[in-house]
């Protein structure tokens, strides 16, 4: 066995010791680096810059990166293996994001701030230098409430039980408190004051974190009258942070559309766009926002968990062993398995790819029926899609595309005219947009569809840095955003049913 090698991560200044031959993706994933396309060398989202040491340029990297970028030391982390000691800069952590937002009044100020993306499944926190905009530390954890149910509805059910609300609030507050302390300890100057903490998350996470009444969210009318900005002192939350910063959970947009989507609006600059653009968070709740600087509409479509592999007979999360990509090869279907080993199941992107490819190969008819009249479509020797799996996908896809169509119609436009369609959420960044388009999840032109990364975290950072957002109430912006409850939309049924079908041969 060879000696371990050292990787130094900039700008965190952190050192990690790893076995030679380890993939950089495995190492960096643990440090909160995202792999938007699932590490397939497709998106370039995991770009790193080599400051010292060597990393081989594999063919997929040469395709995505230009010769001069390679010359400057840029690589794709997902396609690198560690052979010797390295010093790296992770692009995701840099200020680049802020400079993309020309209109953002980035007012450098002394001090440090923290942003937290409170997801139903995962928590991500970043420590930021408010002067330089740089990420000083990153920390990730699982949402400990998951022991009380995987999805937001089961969390609500738990919160309605005696003592449940308190338990869920304590669980999440304690976990984030510990996460932040751990994050400060991992960076230099742990005792330096924190000026401000910004938290974003969906409406249920908001209510459970802030310990608010959830009756109106759990039952009809599924309203969230209390989804405005919530402010706490660190002490109130039991967090021991230097400088006793204020902690703010950003406001939601109404109904099940939360602060994470407000952050998404900021991250995509929808609120400043002249043309109408849209953002879809492809998770269980399937939130959509669409509009421009004048008016924004938002809704949640309740797509269900199919995109996350839920309610799919051999479905699984996008992790090792999942079929994440399917394409036509030699008259059959060829699968790519995450980690390269034996397939254990199929994740959302694999499901969408498999159905898209099968539609092209006429193995599946536009009405979703397997063309050979059978009830299963083998992907590998052990893994197959059943007819009911395809039906689940049709429901999820139908809900989202119907929601998008209805919002755009209310704005007096349609997908053809959409200037940009941003995909957010883990699955949104994973799915092959061409396949998503093929199954009719959207019809916007391919070149206008963009995987937007973690827009919740990005938007939270913009809120933290932006000068105009000092009070973080977003009163002006919120007055231009309207929540559309689809349950009372007269057209939803009809459009939804029509959208459960797949587009015909192309």
């Amino acid at each position: 066995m060879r000696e371990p090698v050292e990787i130094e991560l900039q700008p965190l200044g952190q050192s990690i010791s790893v076995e030679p031959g380890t993939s950089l993706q495995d190492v960096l994933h643990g440090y909160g680096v995202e792999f938007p396309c699932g590490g397939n060398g497709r998106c370039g989202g995991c770009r790193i810059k080599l400051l010292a040491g060597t990393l081989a340029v594999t063919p997929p990297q040469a395709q995505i990166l230009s010769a001069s970028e390679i010359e400057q030391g840029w690589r794709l982390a997902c396609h690198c293996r560690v052979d010797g000691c390295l010093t790296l800069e992770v692009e995701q952590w840099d200020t680049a994001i802020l400079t993309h937002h020309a209109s953002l009044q980035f007012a450098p100020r002394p001090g440090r701030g923290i942003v937290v993306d409170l997801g139903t499944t995962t928590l991500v926190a970043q420590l930021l230098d408010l002067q330089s905009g740089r990420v000083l530390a990153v920390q990730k954890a699982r949402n400990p409430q998951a022991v009380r149910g995987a999805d937001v509805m089961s969390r609500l059910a738990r919160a309605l039980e005696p003592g449940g609300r308190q338990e869920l609030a304590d669980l999440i507050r304690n976990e984030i408190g510990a996460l932040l302390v751990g994050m400060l300890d991992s960076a230099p100057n742990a005792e330096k004051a924190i000026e401000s903490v910004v938290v974003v998350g969906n409406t249920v996470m908001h209510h459970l974190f802030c310990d608010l009444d959830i009756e109106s969210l759990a039952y009809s009318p599924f309203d969230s009258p209390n989804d405005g900005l919530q402010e706490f002192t660190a002490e109130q939350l039991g967090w021991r942070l230097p400088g006793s910063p204020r902690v703010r959970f950003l406001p939601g947009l109404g109904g099940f559309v939360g602060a994470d989507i407000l952050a998404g609006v900021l991250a995509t600059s929808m609120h400043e766009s002249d043309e109408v653009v849209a953002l879809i968070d492809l998770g269980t709740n399937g939130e959509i926002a669409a509009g421009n600087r004048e008016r924004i509409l938002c809704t949640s479509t309740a797509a269900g968990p199919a995109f996350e592999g839920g309610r799919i007979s051999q479905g699984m999360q996008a992790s090792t062993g999942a079929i994440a990509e399917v394409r036509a090869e030699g008259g059959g279907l060829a699968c790519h398995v995450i980690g390269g080993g034996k397939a254990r199941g199929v994740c959302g992107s694999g499901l969408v790819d498999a159905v898209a490819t099968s539609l092209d190969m006429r193995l599946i008819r536009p009405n979703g029926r397997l063309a050979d009249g059978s009830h299963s479509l083998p992907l590998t020797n052990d893994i197959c899609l059943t007819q009911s799996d395809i039906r689940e996908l049709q429901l999820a896809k139908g809900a989202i595309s119907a929601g998008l169509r209805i919002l755009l119609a209310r704005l007096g436009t349609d997908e053809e005219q959409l200037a940009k369609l941003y995909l957010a959420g883990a699955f949104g960044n994973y799915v092959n947009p061409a396949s998503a388009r093929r199954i009719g999840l959207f019809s916007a032109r391919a070149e206008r569809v963009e995987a937007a990364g973690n827009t919740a975290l990005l938007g939270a950072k913009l809120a933290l840095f932006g000068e105009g957002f000092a009070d973080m109430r977003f009163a002006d912006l919120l007055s231009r955003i309207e929540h559309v409850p689809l349950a009372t939309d007269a057209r939803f049924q009809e459009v939804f049913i029509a959208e459960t079908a797949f587009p015909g041969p192309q």
Partner: protein
Amino acid sequence: MSDALVETLHSSLLELDQPKTVAAARAICSGDGEPSAEQAVQALAAALEIVGQRFQQEDWFLGELVYAGEIAKQAMEILTPHLSALATQSSGTLVVGTVAGDMHDLGKDIFITYARSAGFEIIDLGVNVSAERFVEATQVHRPLALGISCLLTICAGGIPQVIEALAERRLRDGLRVIVGGAALTAEFAAEAGADAFAPDAVTGTRVIEKWSGV
């Protein structure tokens, strides 16, 4: 010729050919009473039976199910005025609604379309229906059965509440309760005190037909 019309009605519904189905229904009504409107209604019912099988066998999905129901409804509207008094007699009245707290109505509406085509009179209470309103409607309409839909797990507890409220007012005896919707299972339905659970609208229609003895 006449049998051919009934045959056309039957096959064009199964081909989801709306103009042809409607034209066949009109032709039957403007004919000499041979074939009769009653025969036509029977043919439609037989075709819907097959629609149900296709849905259960996963050959067809929501689009076809809803569209076939819609075409059958249009054909029924044409045929009904031509039915004899005996044949227009309702197979029974049903009170249908989505449980309190829940506003999903697609599945409930599909069930209603199929139950209506089978000759049932439907009192549709809509969505988010409280136990109190189910009880009131039962008192007023004295239905053969109550149909309750539920898509949200968190609202499923509303179903035993309806059934208890009915029992308290002594309305439960002689009344049947059928429940459906993606949040429910046969076990849950039995535990909640319902008489039947329907995994889909067509099965539900079969069940109430059995109850009404048609």
